Every structure is written in C-alpha cells, then in structure tokens.
C-alpha cells in the first residue's frame, strides 16, 4: 500500500474522530477532507477522484453522522472542481509536466487559496443541505465563515502531512 493511501486512511480516521468526539460548536464544522482530496496524486483522474470522494463521504457518514449521503453530496463537487482549481491557482503546466503538488516548490501562498476555494465549496453544500432550510441565513453565513477559517487553517497542516514525502522527493 502506498504511503499516500495510508496517510489518506489515517487522516480519514482522524476526521471521523474529530467529528465524533469533538463537536466544538453549532457554529463550527471542522473539515479537512477537501485538502485530503487536493493532495492526492495527480495521476488519478477526475472520475476516479469523484468515486474516491463519494466513498470517503459515505464511509464517514456511515460511521459518524448517520445521515448517509450528506458528506458524499458535498465532497463529490470538490473532486470535480479539484483539477480546475489546481489549474487556476497553481497553473495548468503542472499537469503538462506531470508534477505532483509540493509545499516546497509551490509554496503555502498558493496552497492557501486552493484550500480556501475547495473548502468553501464543500462547506456551502454541506451547511446548506445539513440545515435543510431550518435555520436562518445569517446563522448559516456565520457558520460558513467560522468553519472556513478554522478548517482552512487545519487543512494547511493536513496538506503538509499529506505532501511531506513528495516534497522531499523533489528537493
């Protein structure tokens, strides 16, 4: 089993533990699943990435929330938009050269906006469907902003962990 896959599984378990044992606030959803998807190897195409996102979300819903489909619904669009976001933030030549993402080469200045974009996509869908029209807009907006800031900060750390090996390889 490749180390990236092992890291992905361990971080998935960490996400499950975080959601299950640390429900900080009604106004906060801490999530780093988009960052995990962002840091998966580029060789995986969009379709494979969407299937991975779907199964990850489904497994997480199964063992944590019980609302089967909620995380999958929010995570599949992240997988769909992963490639366009990488092209937008890191440049499309990364695909042409077959490079992997690296903190050392691309720098955190590029990772932060990419993580922000993908996390925002996830949170918008997640909060929207989770609230199901039962809470006012301002509550959802506040929850989105707080969750985006906290999750993005956490996601940068997760990306560091995920890309540690590949970064060393490019040195």
């Amino acid at each position, binding site marked *: 089993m490749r180390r990236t896959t092992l890291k992905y599984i361990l971080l998935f378990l960490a996400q499950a533990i975080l959601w299950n044992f640390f429900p900080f606030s009604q106004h906060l959803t801490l999530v780093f699943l988009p960052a995990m998807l962002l840091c998966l190897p580029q060789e995986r195409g*969009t379709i494979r990435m969407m299937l991975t996102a779907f199964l990850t979300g489904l497994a997480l819903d199964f063992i944590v929330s019980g*609302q*089967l*489909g909620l995380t*999958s619904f929010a995570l599949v669009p992240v997988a769909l938009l992963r490639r366009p976001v990488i092209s937008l933030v890191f440049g499309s030549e990364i695909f042409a050269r077959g490079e992997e993402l690296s903190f050392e080469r691309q720098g955190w200045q590029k990772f932060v906006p990419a993580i922000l974009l993908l996390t925002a996509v996830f949170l918008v869908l997640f909060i929207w469907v989770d609230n199901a029209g*039962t809470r006012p807009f301002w509550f959802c907006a506040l929850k989105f902003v707080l969750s985006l800031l906290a999750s993005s900060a956490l996601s940068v750390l997760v990306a560091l962990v995920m890309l540690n090996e590949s970064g060393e390889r490019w040195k």
Partner: protein
Amino acid sequence: MPRGQKPVSFLAGAAIFILLEVAALGMLHASSTLQNIWLNRASHRTMALLWGGSETIRSHFQLERLNQELQAENAALQERLRAYERLEADQEELARMAAREAAGYRYTPATVVKMSRNLTHNYIILNKGSEDGIRPQSGIISDRGVVGIVEAVDRHYSYGLTLMNPQMSVGARVGRTEIVAPLSWDGRTSGVAVVRNIPPHFNIEPGDTVRTSGYSSIFPPDLPIGVTGGTRLVDGSTRQVDVHLFQDFSTVRYVTVVENLERSEMMALEAAGEGRP
C-alpha cells in the same frame, strides 16, 4: 468543456458526477427525516414551478375557447336571472294585487293586444274580457302610471281609451298644493297632458308630481301620472298646467286592469242622491 479534455471523457465525468450526486441525495432522502422533508419540499416547489408555468402557457392558448365558454355560461346565467326576476316581480305584483284587493279594488293583469298612438282618439285593446272578470269603466294602469279606461268588454277582449284621447279625463292631485283638477291629453304632443281649471292663486312649481286624486270611482288614489311642466293662465281666470306623463305609450305592453269593487254601490248612492228633490 475544459481545454484539452476529450468530449467523451468530459461527458462521462459529468454523467458520473450527476449519478453520484443523485445517489447521495437519494441516500440522504432515505436516511434523514429532516432532509427527507426538505428534499420533498424542494421537489414540490420545482414541480410547481415547472408544471405551473407550463399550465399558464397552456391556458394562455386556451383563452379564446375559455372566453367563449364563459360567454355562453354568462348568457345562460343571465337568462336564469331574468327568469327569477320575472318570477319575483310576478310574486310581488300578486302580493300587491292581494293587498289592493283588500282595499276595495280588484287587479287583473293583461297584455296589450293592439294600441293606437298616432290618432286623435287613441284606443287600446287588451287580451282579457268579461270571462276574466273585466268590467267596463275599469281603470288601466301600469307600473309607470295611468294608461286608460276600459270602455267596452267582449268575452275575451276589452276595448279602452288611452290617456292620449281627449275624451278621457282623470281626476288628478297636483304636487305639494294637493289641488285636485281634471287631467286630459292636450291632443297635440305625445306624452304630455294638461291639468285644467286650477284657480289662479295656486302656485304650481315645475317638477311637482301629479297623482290620481282617488275622487273618481275608477282609479285608486295616489297612482303616479306624471310631473308638472309649464303653467299658464287661461282667460285670466284659471290656470292650466302641462304634465309630462310617466307612461311612455310607445313601449307599454303589460298592463293591469283595476276595478273598483264598490263602484256599483257608489253609483247607486250617487243616483239616489241625484234623484232627491
């Protein structure tokens, strides 16, 4: 479609994305009551938007047919309404007749069979005769006022003089002065009669109502006849007042024959009084 991506790959990606999202929503729908309700509501809203819009468009193209149906329905309803109004008017008329009969008059509805309007001595023929209880010297009235007097009666028809006949005279009570004087047609103008022999010191204002006096044995009191017009002195000794009749003789079709049930008694008393030295 992103640059450099094959159309088949793009379509497959889009199809799988839609499939996965639908599957996720399907599972969410089945597993959570709150999301189930929310999704159902969203589905109903979407259906209402889609089919409601198409229904509006469809009904727009059916407007002409709907208008025709509405017009036909409207006509049928109006016909029914008129029937009810006629029935109601008949019942009201019957109730009025019963009340008047109790006051000493009998009222018999009749239809005008023939009526002259352009002669000097105009007449009227009604479809009710002696078999219907019509007697000579009965009044002919309508809802607009006095029409004439029955002169002769056959078994099924009656012949009468209209107010547009100089031979006919009606006792009239004029306006607020309550002066009583004979009213008859002026012989010239359709719809205008004159009240004669009013003492000159009575001041008659134009627009006053003229009614039957009730002094005759033919018409009950206070039946409307018309409104006063201009006045003039005749020979310096009497005043003559024009009266614009309420009754339009060109449109009259349904009338009521009014008979004073105590007329014979009154006539006998009058004859007895005249016979006294």
